[in-house]
């Protein structure tokens, strides 16, 4: 379609060009090679569009995977861990990473530029969480405590564990779901929520709750352990 348009435009242009010979004098100045060079600040966004947007959404939001245009998320994870994830992907998860050994073969400098670009564009005024983001730093969880926390804060949308009736937002105790998501994935989902999908983070507000409350680092670990235990019970 655009080629056809170009051809028509070309025909029209012939007349214009013939009438205006002076314009032709400038032809040599519009070297087509000049337009190829992309300006550097856009490089990170081009890399994002080519390699990340499929899962994380066109502009860092509204993707199937985690929203990246989330200042608090970026601030909490921090530059170093972001560089690590961008390079190597998510162990046990779907993200293959963009580092030298993975899909995009970015070198470390490109990764750093990308992460800095992301922090610049999406991380303005982000506030790091007061509780640990990484499961490595999180306290060990307790399944029965987790069950109580789940019933109080999660169940109203995600349904009781093992329920056969469809819940409003879909089960998080589906064994297949739990096999596809890592503990870190669960913890991040609870901590940061899915704002674009309407799911609140750790600080709530949780729907259908009389008392506004926040989850503690311990409670999040408990819920994660509890969710895992539901899968093993079913098996």
């Amino acid at each position: 379609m655009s080629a056809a348009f170009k051809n028509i435009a070309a025909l029209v242009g012939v007349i214009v060009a013939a009438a205006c010979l002076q314009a032709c004098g400038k032809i040599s100045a519009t070297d087509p090679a000049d337009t190829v060079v992309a300006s550097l600040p856009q490089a990170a966004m081009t890399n994002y569009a080519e390699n990340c947007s499929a899962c994380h959404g066109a502009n860092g939001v509204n993707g199937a995977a985690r929203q990246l245009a989330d200042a608090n998320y970026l601030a909490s994870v921090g530059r170093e861990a972001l560089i690590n994830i961008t390079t190597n992907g998510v162990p046990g998860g779907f993200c293959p990473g963009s580092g030298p050994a993975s899909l995009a073969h970015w070198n470390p400098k490109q990764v750093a530029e990308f992460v800095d670009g992301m922090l610049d564009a999406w991380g303005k005024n982000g506030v790091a969480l007061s509780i640990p983001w990484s499961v490595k730093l999180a306290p060990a969880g307790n399944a029965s405590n987790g069950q109580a926390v789940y019933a109080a804060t999660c169940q109203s949308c995600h349904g009781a564990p093992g329920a056969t009736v469809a819940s409003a937002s879909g089960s998080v105790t589906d064994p297949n779901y739990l096999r596809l998501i890592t503990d870190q994935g669960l913890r991040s989902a609870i901590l940061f929520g899915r704002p674009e999908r309407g799911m609140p983070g750790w600080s709530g507000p949780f729907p259908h709750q009389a008392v506004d409350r926040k989850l503690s680092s311990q409670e999040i670990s408990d819920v994660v352990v509890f969710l895992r235990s539901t899968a093993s019970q079913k098996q």
Partner: protein
Amino acid sequence: MFRTIKNMVGGLLGWTESRSGVITFVQPILTHRVPRDAKWWYVFGSASLMFFSIQVITGILLATMYVPSAAEAYSSLQYIDQQVPFGWMLRALHAWSSNAMILMVVIHMSQVFLHASFKFPRELMWMVGVLLLFCTLALAFTGQIMRWDQDAYWGLGIGAAIVDRVPMLGNQMRNVMLGGPYIGGATLSRFFALHVFVLPGLTIGLIGAHMALILKNGISEMPKPGMVVDPKTYVAEYEERIKKTGVAFMPDAAQRDMVFCGLMLIIVGFLAWYLGPVGPNGIPNPTIIDANPRPDYAFLWIFTAMALMPPQIETAVLLIAPPIVVLFLLGLPLISNRGERAPSRRPGAVVVYVLTATALGTLTWLGVVSAWSPVMDAWTSLPTPVKYLVGRTPLEMQGALVIQHSQCRNCHSLGGEGGLRGPNLDNVGSRKSWDQLVRQVQQGGGNMPAYGKNLSSAETTAVVAFMTTLRNAGAPESTIPGAMERQSSPDQAPKAVVGDVGQ
């Protein structure tokens, strides 16, 4: 003063003529009589010649800067594009004028075929013309190699793979074509020799023969129904008619040629300026496997045919079809050299032409779309349409990730974006039941690879759960055996839930 100059010029001309006889030689050529009705239909041959002349001129100039070495060709092209004044414009002219030349040759040939101008006594003109067509196409193919980019490198690979299929001698022929056991410097050098010495020389010679035959046999008249070619009487009748009603080539026919050629030249010049040079695209380094090779327009139909032909007959067709086509084209005037010329009296020929033109046009268009090719970066660059994520369960969201992660979209589109090789998945939940989807994913079939070994059962369940949510608005949820595993009915509750949560 003016008189003096005029006398001097006249004297000079007279002297030149008396020593060379050039005017005596050229005048009968310029004023040879052509049919009165030889109007706009007859300009395309001249236009082909004009574009060939442009090719010779721009080609010689490009050869003054181009380095036909595999190590330096690419950078020399970049140098011509970026550093040499008017270099990019010259390359653009060479490229677009070559496209125009092919177009003119094809139109010219169509006209000759449809008007049956190849019949007695012009059989040989047609045959020389067919050879000129092959020369033109060979020049286009070898010219594409001169760009020495990824298209050129892998285009040679395709050519080598075709030659390789010749029984017994295939490997030897391939080595002769490539100048060795692989594509390298020797390959570029020999295609350069073909492109700048052998083929242009051959073409110039054949053009000379073509023109000599025009002078010998005369230009054919516009066909009239009922005006039958009979070899016994045709020549005398033609000469009689031409003597009576013919006009001098110069200026009666030449003026139209000039108007048309001038117009075409302006258009091509503008196209060259507007669209710029063609290529070079990626560096021809065989270790860069992200290449997406495509031939130039003139060869896209072959590219398509190779994708769509059933594999069982491919080798046979590749080896048998070209000689048949060549023999048919060359032998055409021998098969049919007398009788009616008017298209209205030759319905068979018109049908053959229309079918051929439609087939070539369709194949070329299909080649532009290349629906059979996976879109290699679709899985990382095309976001899942947001409307397919709204209100999905956590498992279905994971399924959406599996769709991206397992490169499904390289062949299947979602929301109009992605590969066209497989069916689009926008409405797959209405077309197939849960069990059918599981079977299709695990076992493949219908030209889809089996994913059974590559997806875990959880991944398969997730991706099928996601796909069953992809239904036209209002389409009923098909009776899905095994729907117990599904968590929610996405078209109903969820959107309300999102609002709920926000409160």
